[in-house]
C-alpha cells in the first residue's frame, strides 16, 4: 500500500503544478480505468472539486456502456464535461474499415486537435502510462507539443527533479502525464484501495470467460480470455500474465503507435 500512496503523492503534486501554472487547462477522460483513476486523483488533489473541464473525444464507435457511465459520473461528481467529435470525418464516412491507423488519426488525433484548437488549451492532462507502450516509456511528465500538435521526441527538454516545463512559446501546448510511473497492476490496486467506481461489466468477467483489459472503440478492441470476476482476481491474473496489456488494441500493431503519437495522439 505504501507504494500506492507514493504514486498518489507524486501524481497529486503534478496535478497541482499543472493547475497552478496553466490558465487554460483540461483533462482527457476516456472512461477507461487509467483516466478514471486520474480523475479520482484530481478529486484528491482539489479536495473533491475538479477545477478544469474534462474532455472526451467521442469517435461514435465507443462501447455504449462507456457513454452511460460517463454521463452518470459527470452528473454525480458535478464535472464540466466537454465532448468533441470529428463530425466532418464521420460525415465523410470514416470508419475502421478504411484502415485502423487512418481511422484513429481522423477520429481521435484529429478530433482531439480540433477540440484543443477550438478551446485554445495550453495544458492537457492525460492518463498515459510508461508500461503501456515503449514510446510512452520515453515521455516526460510535462511534454511539449508544437503548433501542429507534434511531439519532437528527438529533442525533449530536460526535466529535473520536481521542476517541470511550465513555460512555452505561444501557439504550442504542454501534455501533462501524471500517471507515467504507474503500472497496470498499480491502477487496479489503487481502484481497490480507494474503492473507485469503474466499468465493472466490461473490465470483469460476467460469466462468459472474457473481459476487456483495455477499452477503446468497439470495432477495434477485443476482450481477452479471463475468468477474473473481481478486482483481486484481476490483480492476481496480471501478476502472472506475460501478455501485453494492449494486445487487444488493433492500432498498436507494427509501428502504428510511434507514428500516431508523433503526430499528436495521446
Amino acid at each position, binding site marked *: 500500500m*505504501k*507504494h500506492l*500512496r*507514493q*504514486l*498518489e*503523492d*507524486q501524481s*497529486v*503534486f503534478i496535478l*497541482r*503544478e499543472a*493547475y*497552478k501554472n496553466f490558465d487554460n487547462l483540461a483533462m482527457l477522460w476516456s472512461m477507461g480505468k487509467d483516466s478514471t483513476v486520474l480523475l479520482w486523483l484530481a*478529486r*484528491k*488533489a*482539489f*479536495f*473533491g*472539486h475538479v*477545477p478544469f473541464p474534462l474532455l472526451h473525444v467521442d469517435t461514435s464507435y465507443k462501447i455504449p456502456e462507456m457513454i452511460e457511465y460517463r454521463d452518470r459520473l459527470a452528473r454525480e461528481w458535478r464535472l464540466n464535461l466537454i465532448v468533441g467529435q470529428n463530425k466532418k470525418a464521420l460525415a465523410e464516412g470514416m470508419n475502421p474499415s478504411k484502415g485502423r491507423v487512418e481511422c484513429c488519426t481522423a477520429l481521435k488525433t484529429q478530433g482531439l486537435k480540433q477540440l484543443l484548437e477550438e478551446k485554445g488549451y495550453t495544458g492537457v492532462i492525460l492518463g498515459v502510462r*510508461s*508500461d503501456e507502450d*515503449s*514510446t510512452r*516509456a*520515453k515521455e*516526460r511528465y510535462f511534454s511539449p507539443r508544437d503548433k501542429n500538435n507534434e511531439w519532437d*521526441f*528527438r529533442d*525533449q*527538454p*530536460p*526535466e*529535473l*527533479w*520536481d*521542476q517541470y*516545463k511550465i*513555460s*512555452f*512559446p505561444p501557439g504550442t501546448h504542454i501534455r501533462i502525464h501524471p500517471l*507515467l*510511473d504507474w*503500472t497496470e*497492476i*498499480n491502477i487496479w*490496486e489503487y481502484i481497490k484501495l*480507494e474503492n473507485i467506481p469503474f466499468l465493472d461489466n466490461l473490465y470483469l468477467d460476467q460469466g462468459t470467460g472474457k473481459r476487456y483489459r483495455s477499452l477503446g472503440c468497439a470495432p477495434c478492441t477485443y476482450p481477452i480470455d479471463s475468468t477474473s470476476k473481481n478486482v483481486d482476481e484481476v490483480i*492476481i491474473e496480471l*501478476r*502472472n500474465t*506475460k*501478455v*501485453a496489456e494492449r494486445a487487444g488494441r488493433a492500432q498498436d500493431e507494427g*509501428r502504428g503507435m*510511434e507514428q500516431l503519437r508523433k503526430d499528436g495522439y495521446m
Partner: protein
Amino acid sequence: MTTDTAIKERMNIVIVGHVDHGKSTLLGRLYADTGTLPIGKIEKIQAICKQQGKEFEYAFLFDSFLEEQQQGITIDTARTFFSWGGRQYIIIDAPGHKEFLKNMVSGAARAEAALLVIDALEGVRDQSKRHGLLLSMLGVKQVTVIVNKMDLVGYRQDTFQAIEKEYRDFLSQLNVTPQYVIPASAKLGVNIAQVSPETPWYTGPSVLDSLAHFSLETALAEKPLRLPIQDVYKFDARRILVGRITAGQLKIGDRLVFSPSNKSANIQTIEAFNVDPPPTQAQAGQSVGITLDEQIFVERGQIAAQETDRPLVSTRIRANLFWLGKQPLETRRTYSLRLATREVPCEIAKIHRIVDANNLDDKHTQSTVKRNEVADITLRTKTPIAFDLYANFETTGRFVLVDDYDVAGGGIITELVHDEQESFRTEARERDSVWVKGDITPADRAKQYGHHAAVLLFTGPDTTAKAFLARKLETVLVAERRHAYLLSPENLQRGLDADLQDTKPEEVIRRFGEVIRLLTDTGLLVLCTTNAFQQPTRELIPTIQTLVNPTPLITIHMAKELTGPQPDTDLTFAGPENFDDCTSQIIQLLKSRGLLKEFSGGPSEVQFSI
C-alpha cells in the same frame, strides 16, 4: 521464474555510463534472464532484426524509436518496470552519448540508485566520469558499478581490478563509495541474473541480487520540517494551503513559520479527500493540504518550517551547477531561478571555476559555462529567497535555471553568501517573532478598509514633481474612502532622528523603514517620498523592502525623461506630466495586484483573495 508476489515498496534505478558500454543490453538481459518480458517481445524484435538484416541485440528491446534502432544508440531515457522480491523497480535506461546528456540527467534526477556501466575493454571513459559526477550532484548516492563485456578481455581478474581501482579512486573524490563493483557480460548473461562460473575469482552478488541491497531513503521524516507552499485554494469555505512535505513532519496544532515572509500561524486542520477519519499528521513525501488558525498572507514559493529550525534567507548563493542550455550560461544575463515552488529572476554574479570531471582539482576558469559543463558559481536573486544547503536538505537545497522556456541547468547550493541586507533581515525576523498582536488580524483590517496595507515609494530626481503626485494620489485615495497616508522622510528629521548626525545615513533609513512597518501594521496604504535621503534609491529600496516584508512595496519612478523601464520599478513616468492619468495608472496597478477592491461608493463589503 514468476513475479507473483505482492509489491511492498518501489524504487527508481537509473543505468548510466559511456556510450556503447552496454547499458541497454544490460537492461534487456536483466529482463530476459528473469523471465519478466511480455510474451512475444523477443520474437517480435528478432523478426524486425531479420527483416532489416541485422543481428539480434538485447538492447533493441527498449530502444523503441525507429531512429534508435537504426542508429543502435539510445536517444532518450526509457522507464521500464521490473518487479522482483516484493519491490517494484522503475529502471531508467539513460543514453550514454554526450549529445543526449540532458536526457541522461532527466533520467538520473528521478532515480534513487544507479548502475554505472563501464566497458572492460575500453575502460573508464569521459562519460563514465561525467556521469559519476552528475550522479553525485543529482542526489543519487547509491551506486553499483558494472564492469561489462568481460568476455572481451577473457574474464581477466587483473583487467577488472585495474578498472575497479581507477573508478573507486575517482568516486572517492566525490565522497561516493560504490556498493559493489561487478564483473559481467550482459551480452552473454554472465553475472546478470546469477553468479556465473566464468569469474570464479569474484565473490560478490549478481547484478540482479545487488538491486535488493539498494536501500530506500527513510531518514527524511526525521529531519526538521520543510513544506514549500505550492498553492492556496479556496474552492469552498476552506482556505487550504497545499504542498509536498520535502522533509520532516507536521501535525495539527503545530506552529508554522513561513520564509522568507516570517509570518506564522498554527495548523488548524489537515485536509484530505476520501480519508475517514481525517488525518491528524503527515510526513516527508506526502502531498498535503492544511488550514491555519489565522488568515495570514501566504503564497506559493514560501517555505513552512518550525520556529526552531528555519531555512536560510539571502539574495546570494554559491552553488555547483551543471548547464544543459543551448546557449552558454553568461554573467549579466537574467535567468529564472526555480527552487522548490519559488520562481525569481536571477543573475550569475561570478563563475569561480569550471569543474572538469577528468580532473576534479583543476582550477580552470572561463567567462561562460558551456553546454554540458559543470561550474562553481555565485548567483544573485532579485528578491530574497528561502533555501537550505544541499548537504542538509536535498529538495530545498537545489534549484534549476530556466532559459528561453526550458529548464537549462540545475544546481546544488553549497554556501550562503551574505548580502548587505543580512543585518536588517535578522532585525526584522527577531522583531516579528516577538511582536505582540491584538485580536484584530491584518485580514480583518483589510476587510474593513477595502484594501490591504502597502507601501508606495516615489523615487526620482528633484523637480520632477513626484511629491506633488504623491499628494494628489493620497487625496484621490482618501476620497475613495481608502486609508492612505503620506509620509515624508523630512518629518522624521527633527523628531525621531533628532539625535542622529548626517554621518549615519543607514540608521536614518532603518528608522524610516521601522516607522513604515508600524504604519502598515495598522493597515494603511503608506505613500513615501524619498528626496530627503542622501543615499541612492537602489540601496534604499532593498532595505525598506526587508524591513516591511512581507507587506508589498510598490515603486513609482518619476524620471526627467522616459528612457525605458527602470530596474526594480513598478511604474515609470516622465514628470511633470498629466497627474490624473498617473494617479489612475497607479490605482489600476494596485487593483491588478489584488491590493485594492473596486470602489463601490457604498460601505465596503469586501471579499479578499487572502
